[in-house]
C-alpha cells in the first residue's frame, strides 16, 4: 500500500538533505531569506490593515494568489516526479496497476504541498500575532486549505494533459479554471472541489499516454544552421540554441516587456493608487521609486541572474565534455557568457555577471538550483539597494552625473572581465598534489 508515495517522499527528502549537506551556507541564507520574506509579507499585511490606502487587497485576491502558486508548484512537482522521472520506468514495469502508481505519486505531491502550506501559513500567522493582528479566522483558514487541495487536483490534470498527445484534453481543466476566475469567491472553488476530483480521476485514466508520449517524442531539426565555427561562436551558438529550444529566450523577452509596462504604470500612477491623500505630500515619489527599483530587481533577476547562474549549473552532467576537449577555460567562460548578451539590454546589466558566473562555476556538480538562485536574489537585493543609494548621492553631488555613470560602467566592465578570468581559473581542475611532481 502506497509504496510509490513513500518512495517519492523519501527520495525528495533525501535529495533535500543531501543538498543541505553539500551546500549548508546556501541553505542557511535561503532559510534566512524565507523568514525575512514572511516578516515582510506580514508587515505588508499589517500596513494594509492599519493604513488607509486606495490599494484594496481582498481575501479573494489572496486566495487566488495562493491557489495559483500552489497550482504551478503542483504542475512542476508532477512533471519532476512523473513525466520526467527516469527511475519511474522500473515501478511502471512491475505487475502493479499503473493507474494506481500514478495515483500514489499524486498523493505524494499532495502531501508535499500540504506540508509547505501548513508550515508557511503557520509561520505567517505567528508573525502576524507578534504584530498584534487578530488571526482567529478558522473558517477562512479551512477555505484556504481546501483551495490548496483543489489547486493540486487541477495542477495534476493540467500537467498530465499538457504533456499528452491529445492536448484538447486540457480544455475541461481550462474551463474549470475560467469558472473559478469568474466566480472569484473562495467558497465557489471549495464547492466545486468534487469537480476537480473528477478531473483528477479522469486524468489518471489518460496518464500513461502522456508519460509515453513525453518519452518517445521525436524532435527533428533542420540542419541549415550546422556549420563549423570559432570556439567562442560555437559555444555561443550552442547556448542560445538551447535557450531558444527551451523557450527561455521568449520568456526573458516577455518578462522584460511586461515588467517594463507595469513599472511605467506604477511610476506614473503609483502615488495616486497607493498613497492615501493625507500622506501624499510627504511621501510623494517614494513608492514609485520603490516600484521602479523592485521592477529592475525582478527583471535583472529573471533575465540575467537566473540564466547566468544556470550557465554552469546546467553543465553538471556534461562537464566531462568541457574538460576533455582542448580549449582554454577562459574561451569557454567567455563563449557561455556572451550567449547572455540579451541580458545586456536589461537594466543594470553588468552587475549580475560579476558575481553570478563564478558562483555558477563554484556550484557545478552540486546543483542547488532554486535554493541557490533565491539566495543569490537576496544578496543581489542588497547590492542593488546600495547602487540606488549611490545613484541618489551622485545625482545630488555632481552637476553632470552622466560622466560619473560612464566611469562607473567602465569600472563595472573591467570588474566583469576580471570576474570572468577568475571564473576560468575556478573552472580548472584543482590538483592538490602532495609533492612537486608535475
Amino acid at each position, binding site marked *: 500500500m502506497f509504496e510509490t508515495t513513500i518512495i517519492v517522499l523519501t527520495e525528495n527528502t533525501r535529495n533535500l538533505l543531501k543538498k543541505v549537506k553539500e551546500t549548508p551556507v546556501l541553505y542557511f541564507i535561503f532559510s534566512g531569506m524565507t523568514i525575512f520574506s514572511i516578516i515582510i509579507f506580514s508587515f505588508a499585511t499589517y500596513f494594509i490593515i492599519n493604513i488607509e490606502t486606495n490599494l484594496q487587497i481582498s481575501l479573494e485576491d489572496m486566495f487566488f494568489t495562493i491557489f495559483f502558486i500552489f497550482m504551478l508548484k503542483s504542475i512542476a512537482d508532477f512533471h519532476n516526479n512523473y513525466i520526467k522521472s527516469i527511475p519511474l520506468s522500473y515501478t511502471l514495469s512491475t505487475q502493479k496497476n499503473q493507474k494506481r502508481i500514478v495515483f500514489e505519486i499524486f498523493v505524494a505531491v499532495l502531501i508535499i504541498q500540504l506540508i509547505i502550506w501548513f508550515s508557511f501559513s503557520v509561520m505567517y500567522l505567528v508573525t502576524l500575532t507578534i504584530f498584534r493582528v487578530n488571526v482567529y479566522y478558522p473558517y477562512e483558514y479551512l477555505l484556504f486549505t481546501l483551495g490548496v487541495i483543489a489547486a493540486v487536483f487541477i495542477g495534476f490534470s493540467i500537467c498530465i494533459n499538457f504533456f499528452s498527445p491529445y492536448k484538447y484534453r486540457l480544455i475541461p481543466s481550462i474551463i474549470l479554471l475560467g469558472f473559478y476566475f469568474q466566480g472569484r469567491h473562495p467558497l465557489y472553488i471549495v464547492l466545486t472541489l468534487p469537480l476537480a476530483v473528477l478531473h483528477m480521476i479522469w486524468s489518471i485514466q489518460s496518464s500513461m499516454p502522456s508519460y509515453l508520449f513525453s518519452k518517445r517524442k521525436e524532435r527533428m531539426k533542420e540542419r541549415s544552421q550546422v556549420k563549423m565555427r570559432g570556439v567562442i561562436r560555437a559555444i555561443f551558438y550552442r547556448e542560445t540554441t*538551447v535557450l531558444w529550444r527551451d523557450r527561455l529566450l521568449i520568456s526573458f523577452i516577455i518578462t522584460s516587456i511586461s515588467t517594463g509596462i507595469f513599472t511605467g504604470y506604477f511610476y506614473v500612477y503609483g502615488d495616486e493608487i497607493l498613497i492615501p491623500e493625507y500622506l501624499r505630500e510627504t511621501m510623494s515619489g517614494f513608492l514609485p521609486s520603490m516600484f521602479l527599483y523592485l521592477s529592475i530587481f525582478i527583471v535583472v533577476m529573471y533575465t540575467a541572474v537566473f540564466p547566468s547562474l544556470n550557465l554552469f549549473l546546467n553543465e553538471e552532467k556534461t562537464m566531462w565534455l568541457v574538460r576533455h576537449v582542448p580549449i582554454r577555460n577562459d574561451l569557454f567562460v567567455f563563449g557561455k557568457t556572451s550567449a547572455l548578451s540579451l541580458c545586456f539590454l536589461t537594466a543594470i546589466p553588468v552587475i549580475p555577471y560579476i558575481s553570478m558566473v563564478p558562483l555558477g562555476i563554484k556550484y557545478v556538480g552540486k546543483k542547488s538550483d532554486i535554493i541557490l538562485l533565491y539566495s543569490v536574489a537576496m544578496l543581489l537585493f542588497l547590492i542593488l539597494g546600495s547602487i540606488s543609494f549611490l545613484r541618489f548621492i551622485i545625482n545630488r553631488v555632481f552637476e553632470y552625473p552622466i560622466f560619473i555613470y560612464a566611469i562607473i560602467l567602465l569600472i563595472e566592465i573591467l570588474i566583469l572581465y576580471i570576474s570572468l578570468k577568475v571564473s576560468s581559473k575556478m573552472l580548472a581542475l584543482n590538483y592538490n598534489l602532495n609533492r612537486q611532481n608535475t
Partner: protein
Amino acid sequence: MIIVNNVTKTYGKTIALNNVNFKFDNSHVIAIMGENGAGKTTLLKIITGILPFDNGTILIDGYSIITDSIKAREQIGYLPEMPEMYERLTGREFLYYIASLRKLNDAENKIYEITKMIGIYDFLDSEIGSYSKGMKQKISMTSAIMHNPKNLLLDEPVYGLDPLTSKAIQDFIKNKKGTTVIATHSTQLVEKIADLVYIIMRGKVIHFNNVESLVSRYGSIEEAYFQIKDVVNV
C-alpha cells in the same frame, strides 16, 4: 604514448587508485579489466583530465596533463561509459560543436564517414534527448574518434551496441594506429582486439601480460581473469 607514474586518487577515505604505474605504448590495444569499482573508469577520467588526482604524474605523448593540459588533451579521444550530452541539440549539431571546439578541418567528411560506418547517419537530425542509449553511444564514439586522435581511451566501447556496429567498432580499433586503451568487463572483446591486458583490483594493478600468453596459458581470458583474481584473493 601514455605514461602514468605513481598515481594515487582518493574519494574521501576511499582509495580509488593506489600508486599505480602504466606505460601504454604506441601501436597497442591495451585492455584494463577489473570488477566494478576497481578504478578503471577513474583511471581513464584522470588520464583525460576530467578528474584531478592526488599524487603522481601523467604524460600524454610527452605532455603533462596538468601543466600542458591543452596539448595533452589534443592527443586524446575519449568515450565515457555513460555519455551525457546536450539533449536539446541534434546529433549533427553536437558533432559540429565538438568539431568546432577541436578546430577540426574537413569536419563534414569525417562526420559523414564515421556516422555511416557506425550506422547513426540517418538519425543525425533528431535531438539527442530522443536517442536510445546505443544511439547516444554512437554519437559519443563519433565525437571521440573524428579528430583521429593518437591516443584513444574507451570506456566499455561496445556496450549497448548492436552486433553490426560492435563489429565495425572492433575493426576500427584493430586497424587504428597509435595507442588505444579500453576499460571493459567483456573478456570476449579483450580476446578479439587487445594486445595487452592489465587487471586491476581495489585501485592496484594485480596482473599485466599480453593477451596471447594469457590465452595459451589459461585457455581463455575469462579463465585467466578468474584464476588470477582467485590467487590474489587467497
